[in-house]
């Protein structure tokens, strides 16, 4: 077994089989390292840099079809500045090394006129319950490769361990892929929004994937990171439910 494979295997073993005592404390995102970043399915995750109004922001996303990336809606649109522009997807970034850099050619927000954000307030970790966004590209960000996905809210809510990934820029540089493991899954809060108080997410990880090992060595995107705070610790995800699956199958099918 070569060195990168060993590192990847060790990390995966840690994330998915770590001793239960670790689940008792709060897990924080940590860099997975340059070698693991190049491995599937991590290599399908990327840093999303975009402009909203006069400012630049950062989020995360995952290649889920040849020319499509799944991300969070609030990376794509906001009610003051409208649609984000110059959305640049830096796939498998690790420091200065970037596997590919592509610009989105089409943006989508999957949502209705009302949002849960309004009901709970923008500061609430429950604010982004129906927060799915999509990016389409003229050029395939990973030369046609992509991460698999699965709509299965039950496995998430049943306490299955999952791994959440994203380019956290709050306590890290924003240029390294971070991961945080949830040993006991997430608790359903409202609709497709689930939460855990056993881990934290960083700003910049929004839109990053929540991966579940649905079969041995078969990791699928089962949700995305949409909200989080460090104090108090809270991590919110938007699970891929039937409606989310329909969104992917229709608008992110290329």
């Amino acid at each position, binding site marked *: 077994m070569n060195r990168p494979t060993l590192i990847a295997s060790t990390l995966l073993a840690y994330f998915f089989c770590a001793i239960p005592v670790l689940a008792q404390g709060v897990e924080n995102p940590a860099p997975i390292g340059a070698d693991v970043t190049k491995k599937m399915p991590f290599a399908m995750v990327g840093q999303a840099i975009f402009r909203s*109004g006069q400012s630049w922001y950062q989020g995360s996303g995952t290649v889920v079809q040849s020319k499509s990336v799944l991300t969070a809606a609030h990376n794509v649109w906001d009610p003051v500045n409208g649609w984000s522009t110059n959305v640049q997807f830096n796939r498998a970034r690790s420091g200065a090394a970037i596997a590919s850099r592509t610009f989105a050619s*089409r*943006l989508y927000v999957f949502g209705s*006129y*009302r949002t849960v*954000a309004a009901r709970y307030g923008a500061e609430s970790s429950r604010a982004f319950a129906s927060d799915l966004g999509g990016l389409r590209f*003229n050029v395939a960000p990973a030369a046609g490769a992509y991460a698999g996905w699965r709509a299965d809210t039950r496995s998430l809510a049943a306490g299955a361990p999952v791994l959440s990934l994203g380019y956290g820029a709050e306590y890290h540089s924003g240029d390294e892929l971070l991961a945080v493991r949830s040993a006991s899954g997430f608790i359903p809060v409202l609709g497709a929004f689930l939460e855990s108080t056993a881990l934290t997410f960083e700003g910049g990880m929004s839109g990053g994937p929540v991966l579940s090992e649905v079969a041995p060595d078969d990791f699928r995107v089962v949700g995305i990171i949409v909200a989080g705070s460090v104090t108090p610790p809270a991590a919110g995800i938007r699970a891929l439910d039937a409606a989310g699956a*329909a969104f992917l199958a229709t608008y992110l099918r290329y």
Partner: protein
Amino acid sequence: MQTSRIIRFLALLAVLIVAGYFLGRHFAKPRDAAGKPQRPASARDTAPAANQSEARAFSPGDLLSQIFDLLRNGNLQPGDLAALRRMLLAADPHEAMAAILAFLATGRDARTGEAFGIQKGGGLAAAPTFRVMLLDMLGRIARDAGSDDALTFSKALLTRKTSADEWAIALRNVAWAAPEDRAFLAAKMHEMLAYQPWRQQPGAGFLEAFDVIVFTRDVTFAADLAAMATSEDDATRRAAAAAMDRLSEMAPLDVMNYLNSHPVEFADRPFLRADYFSKADLSQPQQRQAVEAYLARADVAVAEKDKLLAVFASPGSFVGDTLVTEPAPADDPPQRTAGLRAAVGEWLKGNRFPDLANALGQLQQRLAE
């Protein structure tokens, strides 16, 4: 009292079990398509056609009363409302509508514990009150049956302010039954927006009703939407901005002409206003003229125009499930991109907009990728 409640519950449970048995038998039978009328897709998604003689064995009226009593008494079981919906859709449509109308006439109501949830096609996946659920069922059954019952009842309901949720479904029912009556819908929608108790505490139905604005394609709503886009209420701001975006997508020329002739509207939300011009199809001469007029406006800042040109490179769309309108298609017409490329090339070549040369150059580069 407690004993009779239990007996009523057990009786209803028995009815549901028997109905489930017959429906199960129905679906277990091989389909005999010959000569069988097809239900529209919207109904087929949620209520496969059942044998009407079987459904008729359970009076829709009795069923409504029993379920309502259980709801009022707090004895409703998970799945009971879903079962009721399925049975109403499977029943003879005229009997079901008559039962619903009779119940709605009583004015009785109860909260269901569900949120206001829309499913594909505009039907409700969940309704916050029993009456809203029945209004939704009435509209769906009437649409499939080609009946005017929902239209008549909904128009009557819209003469008094019952609740924003009921109005939202009543407006949808009218739009389904009389899509040509956009003037009526627009008038009622203006009335809804002007009703302060609903506007000050906007619920899900009030906000989802913004889809009726998009359906009417009436650009005079731009003034209302512009005012609400700066509302103190987060939900109203978002819904107004999203509705204007979708209205711009549905009626790009009308919206652009309106915004060009009403420069105050959305002037305090310049980046949103830029988005509304990005819906233009520049292969259409009138739409191109409207964009050129906007880019030449002295009252519009360069930053706002730059935003428009940047959005042209990666336009956005809202694609969720809505009450009345269809979501944006997944594929953009190729002539749109060709028209954009041609226009940008000509603007640069003729130095039509010197202040925007950099942004136009970037756009041209992005379009070439």
